């Protein structure tokens, strides 16, 4: 199938004063509580980014990865892009091309597949983009 909704949006890499960011889409049909993001890993140019430097943003708020599991009332609306930020000033400059790889595991909290177990999708997406 032709992929139209991509984990990392095309042409979304942006250099920021804090470092850089890309936009993420939730590849599902309904919004989910942010607490259902089980794993979020980012690599930049083949090097895994320290999780302490990664931030996840929805609804105008920015969260550390360790905060996500408790966000049961923060919903990622299915039409919205989330902002994945890397805090590393100067790492990405406008006009430069960089390879970004994102791996995200999402638990569907209403689709039980066994005692205490839920259907989980793992998405792994790589893209090379020129930073805005």
């Amino acid at each position, binding site marked *: *199938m032709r992929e*139209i*909704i991509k984990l990392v949006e095309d042409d979304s890499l942006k250099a920021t004063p804090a470092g850089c960011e890309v936009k993420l889409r939730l590849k599902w049909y309904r919004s989910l509580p942010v*607490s259902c993001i089980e794993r979020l890993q980012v690599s930049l140019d083949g090097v895994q980014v320290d999780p302490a430097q990664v931030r996840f943003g929805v609804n105008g708020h920015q969260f550390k990865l360790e905060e996500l599991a408790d966000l049961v009332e923060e919903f990622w609306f299915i039409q919205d892009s989330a902002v994945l930020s890397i805090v590393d000033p100067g790492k990405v400059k406008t006009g430069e091309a960089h390879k970004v790889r994102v791996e995200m595991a999402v638990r569907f*909290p209403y689709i039980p597949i066994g005692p205490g177990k839920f259907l989980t999708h793992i998405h792994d997406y790589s893209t090379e983009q020129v930073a805005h």
Partner: protein
Amino acid sequence: MENNKPILGVTLYSFTNEWLSRMYNFDDLVARVAELKLGPAVEVVGFQSFRTYPDVTDEFADHFRNLFAKYGLMPSCLGANCDVGRRKDHLMSEGEILTYLDRQLVTAKKLGFPVMRIQTFVGPKVFEKLAPMAEKAGVHVACELHSPLSVDNPDVVALRELFDRLKSPFIGFIPDFSSTMNLPPNLFWENLGSLGAPAGLIEAAKTIWLTDLPIPEKFAGLAEASVRFKASPVVAGQLNTVMTMFGHMQPGKLAELLPYTHHIHGKFYEVDASGRETSMPYPEIMAVLKKEGYHGTISAEWEGHAFTQEAVGFKWVQAWHAMCTRLLAD
């Protein structure tokens, strides 16, 4: 006369591809449904369409009601969800489940939905406690019965026993035609092929699906075929969904569910040039509904978006409406 016929409509879930691609906002999507005459009954999945769900503001509720009135549409069913696994380390307690569903009942009532869909896994114990809440809200709360939940599934039998005991008109079922299929849809097999499944494996899977073996034996048969045809893990995983997404119940069995039914999911995948759904026996299904005098609502529920991301939902829903209107004509 119309009182003896089902009321046709659509679930906005059919337009998942259009929605995810941001081709429409909510108001424009509803306007398009009205323009193409795909109502009057409109179903909405709360967590898909409403940004503030499970809650909505009074202002939004006013806006929603005015919008539907303007286009002559009627809200049919609110698709609710029970996110019992929202925390990784523990499941929602019974109290948390009831609170979560009560919020969604309030939303259904505010927006004017007469039916709220929940999932069968909440079970009879929670459902019994939900019944008075549904009654208070004046909203019929119903369990969706998609594949593999056929009439004689033990979970379904347990719920029927509860409904017969409580005799409340505010609890019931939402049958889904994915339970009564002739064969899994072409889109499914095409997608499997594009993932690298060999033709022999696809033929073997079709044969296994058509047998009357118990579900666990069918899963075992599929696993054996996957090994025999050296299927990749992705193909083997997709193959298992053949048993969970597509059921093989006889259409006549639907009659047993209709006394508990106010709303139906008219699941479908494609309608061919001759106006026939190729994987489901719509003529037989509609004949059962007519014979039983079913006069609740039915949503066109196109689920081909599980296998393609192209924005083709409107085309298919129009074809479904033409087919069902023809089949329901006297």
